[in-house]
């Protein structure tokens, strides 16, 4: 008896069920997020402790101002904006799982793609947190809300970032939330509710890092940033840091949970790294060549970064460590067989994550200000307060990532599902 009207009823029943079961989903997710073995509690307590130290430092900074940081009118962005840039890359890099899973229909990748989407959520949250600790008047944040404040769109590139970053956050939140909730209900996800959004997320991932690069590259007064290659560099380095982080995360999930993570997705990501790590080195090399071969006053910032200027060389040890890390990691990706010596690749992932954190963090932001626009050389290195706040934010990111994974694993392994009582009315 399948008349159109009864189909309608079944559909309505499904919608009703989906709506009334949602509080139960949230409640059970809260249970899963706060329950685990001893190691889980130790890990979460440690992260919470670091986060609280950061919150406390931030509270002091709000009261006494950014004067508590090492920033000055010469180097007016530092640790926070550097970390922001790196975190945006991490978020964009997660798309390197989404593309194989959804565009190339790689089934093995499809099974674990949720890890990348959760990383995107956590990394965007980190990026947004870094902007919030950087601005001088957090109480005036509402001035930036479109229609409520005064939104200088499209002229200010920062307004583009305000659109794309929370947008990317919501897109991934929707995909993850929808897939998990459908699994929780024991239903097959309806492609029309998430596939278009997944495809949008691919374009969006590139946009978040392009827009973030344009923030810097559009400034004519800062020759170090004023380079057309900056956006491609950002995107490519994102495709190194994202997969490198996920390779490590997948192995941790495999080791500490019942979630099945096959070898194939890890190998696919390493194959991606083989290309992106080398292309990233190529782009950095192209930039360095143009700077140093041209010479003149344009090269002063790069000279400061790599060799020091007028006896000031605070960044030199950082950038050379980063260069060595990135080059060695690229060599390892190209030569080591992941099926035999995965641990060496893990080392390379850690190295390149550090290398890119320097290259796109302090190594990108600080030379934009040194020398200053009037060619004064005033140095900057983050102080203890900036370290505390930054580590606190990264701890928060790891908390979000851990809890997201924990809920996802519980749903995917079937330990978290809707109560049977709701099925009573099912036909």
């Amino acid at each position, binding site marked *: 008896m399948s008349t159109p009207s009864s189909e309608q009823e079944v559909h309505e029943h499904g919608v009703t069920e989906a709506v009334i079961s949602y509080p139960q989903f949230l409640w059970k997710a809260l249970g899963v997020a*706060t*329950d685990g073995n001893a190691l889980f509690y130790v890990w979460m307590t440690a992260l*919470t402790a670091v986060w*609280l*130290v950061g*919150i*406390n430092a931030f*509270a*002091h900074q*709000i*009261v*006494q*101002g*950014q*004067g508590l*940081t090492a*920033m*000055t*009118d*010469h180097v*007016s*962005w530092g640790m926070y904006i550097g970390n922001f840039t790196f975190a945006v890359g991490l978020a964009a890099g997660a798309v390197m799982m989404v593309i194989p899973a959804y565009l190339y229909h790689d089934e093995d990748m499809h099974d674990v793609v949720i890890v990348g989407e959760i990383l995107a959520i956590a990394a965007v949250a980190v990026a947004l947190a870094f*902007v919030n600790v*950087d*601005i*001088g*008047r957090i*109480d*005036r*944040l509402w*001035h*930036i809300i479109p229609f409520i*404040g*005064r*939104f*200088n769109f499209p*002229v*200010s*590139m*920062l*307004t583009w970032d*305000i659109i794309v970053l929370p947008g990317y956050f919501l897109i991934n939140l929707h995909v993850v939330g929808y897939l998990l909730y459908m699994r929780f209900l024991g239903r097959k996800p309806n492609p029309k509710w998430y596939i278009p959004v997944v495809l949008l997320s691919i374009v969006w991932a590139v946009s978040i890092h392009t827009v973030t690069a344009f*923030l*810097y590259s*559009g*400034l*004519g*007064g*800062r020759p170090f940033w004023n380079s057309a290659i900056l956006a491609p560099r950002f995107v490519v380095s994102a495709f190194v840091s994202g997969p490198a982080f996920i390779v490590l995360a997948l192995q941790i999930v495999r080791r500490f949970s019942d979630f099945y993570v096959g070898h194939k997705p890890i190998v696919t990501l390493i194959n991606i790294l083989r290309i992106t790590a080398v292309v990233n080195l190529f782009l950095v090399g192209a930039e360095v060549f143009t700077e140093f071969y041209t010479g003149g*006053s344009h090269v*002063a910032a790069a000279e400061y970064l790599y060799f020091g200027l007028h006896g000031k060389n605070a960044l030199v040890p950082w950038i050379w460590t980063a260069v060595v890390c990135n080059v060695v990691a690229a060599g390892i990706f190209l030569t080591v067989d992941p099926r035999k010596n995965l641990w060496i690749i893990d080392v390379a992932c850690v190295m390149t994550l550090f290398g890119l954190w320097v290259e796109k963090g302090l190594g990108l932001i600080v030379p*934009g*200000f040194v*020398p*200053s*626009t*009037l*060619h*004064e050389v005033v140095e900057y290195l983050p102080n203890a307060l900036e370290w505390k706040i930054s580590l606190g934010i990264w701890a928060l990111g790891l908390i979000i990532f851990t809890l997201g994974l924990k809920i996802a694993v519980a749903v995917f392994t079937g330990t978290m599902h809707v109560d049977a009582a709701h099925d009573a009315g099912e036909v």
Partner: protein
Amino acid sequence: MSDPSRRTMLKGAGATLGAAAFARAVAPITEWTNDLSVEGFLQKHYKELTVEDMSAVLARIERETEEQYGAKVSVEDVRPTPGVQFAYALNLSVCIGCRRCAKACHEENNHDRATNNSYIRVLEMTNGSLNLEHGTVTYDHAVPAPGKFYMPVQCHQCDNAPCVRVCPVEATWKESDGIVVVDYDWCIGCRYCEAACPYHARRFNWSKPEIPADEINPDQAYLSNRIRPQGVMEKCTFCLHRTRRGKLPACLEACPTGARVFGNLADPDSEIRWVLENKRVFVLKEDLGTQPRFFYFFDE
């Protein structure tokens, strides 16, 4: 699996401890909220304030200045005069690098005393080069030194201002008389403008400015020299609280050599027009296309 009620109890204890630690961590915030007022929080953008709004805002600022700094001041909203186009020119042949302009700016504009802030930086340059790389601001000897010339730099009030373009909240804009201003009560302190400015003209209030009551210049304007709040940008305003009332900028009055020329570009008989028409004039970093309203020239 352990006893569920014991587990719940432990979770409860953990949550309570966590909440207590959180409350403790954010406790310093209470000190900050003392300084915030509801009117201040809800205040609209400068251009959206009605006349009544503005008089309430000005009264609030005067009251707060008295409470926090112990000084009676008058804060006014001084508007541009139609038909006036301000411009500034500086004679590099006669500037001796004494930095009296920078000092006058410091006092006139109620700058923080501890940082000795000023909107003007004076570069000591070596004869034979206009390259800023060969300049220094930290010179510490009798001036003028042989073989050197001096180049004070301050906000160029660009007609194509990168700082205005990048502001995400329109907290900075160009007024009809050419002066680029900041609404200190609207700025969110992201410092994007500071990164965008090619002339190091913008300053951030890294801390709450400190000035002894007897040193505060009581003659203040909303868009210029009133004491700035913590966490916002500020910049040279060509002393609009003076110049819009027919006076000259403080830096010009302080100059002992007459190197500075200020005036109305729209007035064909003004000295500034004469300089621009008859001297060898240049602007800094012309290649960036910022179109400054601040010119340099040589006599000989």
